[in-house]
């Protein structure tokens, strides 16, 4: 198994190189001259001589692949360059913004799990009854809700109508409730449907009747057998969700004016702050890949039958 994990890690190397290449190319996609952007951001008049000096200083006069390798080697040494806007280290900006986003993503994930596992299994047990029908309808609608619409609706209901939560976020736990719920609502709709389908599938297997006939309590059947067996599926969708969660934070943080990776991304794009954009894309992608790797490895723990990861 360890050899397989090692092989899996080796296989990551070409993908990592590709990701770094695309992140680097983002600058080349962009119209405009990075040297000019940097000079303007620093408040210097971009005269021809100043531009030429800046281009040499930034290494823009070198061939494309030389620039890429220079950039890559400094990234590998942990130096992602400095932000054009305020000359801070990109790494420091990212590390400063990360906690807020992680806390939000984690609380959204916890809310989602807490809502969807009980509801999914409950509807699977009461298949075809009214409860199943109502929850089925709600989750079907929930899938068609983009997170910015959910965010606006929650903001309207809880901040403007009921005035329960201040419109301008307080930064504390109270400010976290609506953003986390926004992300959780869109995710739980998908989760409830998938958990229900998996649980229905599991409950119809012969071993469940076997357990029931042996007098095992319904509680034990659900939590020691069914839940354990749908765990692999649950971990897969959780791993995939991390990606949409990281993307969703861009929208949600902008609606609720929260600091974090998403807001940094938007302001960096607005200011054409290329090193920061590059750094953010690269970091978010690395986190996403790492989560997927852990997901794959954890399969073997929950289901020893899967050894070929």
């Amino acid at each position, binding site marked *: 198994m360890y050899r397989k994990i090692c092989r899996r890690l080796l296989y990551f190397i070409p993908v990592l190189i590709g990701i770094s290449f695309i992140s680097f190319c983002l600058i080349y996609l*962009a119209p405009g001259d990075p040297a000019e952007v940097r000079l303007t951001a620093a408040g210097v008049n971009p005269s021809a001589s100043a531009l030429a000096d800046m281009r040499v200083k930034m290494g823009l006069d070198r061939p494309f692949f030389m620039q890429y390798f220079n950039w890559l080697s400094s990234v590998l040494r942990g130096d992602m360059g400095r932000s054009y806007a305020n000359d801070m280290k990109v790494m420091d900006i990212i590390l400063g913004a990360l906690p807020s986003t992680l806390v939000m993503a984690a609380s959204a994930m916890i809310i989602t799990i807490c809502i969807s596992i009980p509801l999914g299994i409950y509807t699977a047990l009461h298949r075809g009854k009214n409860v199943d029908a*109502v929850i089925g309808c709600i989750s079907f609608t929930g899938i068609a809700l*983009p997170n910015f619409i959910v965010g606006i609706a929650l903001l*309207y209901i809880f901040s403007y109508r009921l005035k329960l939560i201040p419109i301008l976020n307080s930064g504390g736990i109270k400010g976290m409730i609506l953003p986390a719920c926004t992300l959780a609502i869109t995710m739980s709709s998908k989760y409830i449907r998938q958990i229900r389908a998996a649980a229905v599938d599991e409950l119809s297997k012969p071993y469940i009747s076997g357990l029931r006939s042996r007098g095992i309590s319904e509680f034990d059947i659900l939590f020691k057998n069914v839940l354990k067996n749908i765990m692999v599926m649950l971990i897969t969708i959780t791993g995939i969700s991390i990606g949409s969660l990281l*993307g969703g934070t861009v929208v949600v943080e902008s609606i609720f004016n929260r600091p974090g990776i998403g807001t940094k991304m*938007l302001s960096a794009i607005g200011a054409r702050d290329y090193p920061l954009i590059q750094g953010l894309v690269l970091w978010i992608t690395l986190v996403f890949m790492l989560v997927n790797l852990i997901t794959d490895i954890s399969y073997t723990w929950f289901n020893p039958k899967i050894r070929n990861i």
Partner: protein
Amino acid sequence: MYNNFNRKFAKDFWLLFAAVILIIVLSFICGSFTPYDPHALKTGGLLEPPGIKHIFGTDDHGRDVLSRVLAGSRTSILSSIILVLLSCTFGTALGVICGYFGGLIDIILMRINDIFLAFPGMILAVAIAGLLGGGLFNALIAIFVTSWTQYARLARSQTMVQKEEAFVHAAKLSGCSDINIMFVHILPNIISTLIVTAAMNVSVAMMGIAGLSFLGFGVKIPHAEWGSMISEGKKYLQTAPWMALAPAGVMVFVMIIFNLFGEKLRDILAA
């Protein structure tokens, strides 16, 4: 209730199909025949609440919200359908080629696919759309870059299964060209799965385009589009909630219809 609801729609695939066609046609026609001019700025009648004259009220520039929702429907619905068609065609073609030939082409193209799959979709889309600058076309490029991968994977795995079937060997023996085998013999056998995936993804594409517009990277402001309308309406949530809620409601309704249609299509084609 839900089961009745389900059963009713199980019989009525054609009803949903008609609804989808109706939405597409309406979005085409109504975009040109709106009750009021969706772009004309007025000095009076700003932020009027919904009433008989303006069913969805007016916005901060005195424009009729209903007219703007209708004008925006063309942009939102048609561009998401075009996007899905493009990424499905491109991804399928690549996937079939990879699955059929295998070898070096397969390895290279699938590694490229892996690289694009490794990016969280929205993050890459925001970065690309932001760097290319706003505009619907750039937003479409940004979402296209992140959405073709799934079709390529699907088409590849399906092609690899079909490739070993007897009829493919027979076609080869009778001297059919590779292109002929790939697109005349294999493609018809795998197309239903791809069509279902594409149908389910129309609403995903709609969310993506509207999401980019909401963040200000999609359609430029005076032009009507649901995402940008919701974004504008956010500022007036206190005084004029209809500005954001009307386009949001219509958008969710349209997406539910498309999702119901996609699910129905899956039930029928999978059976």
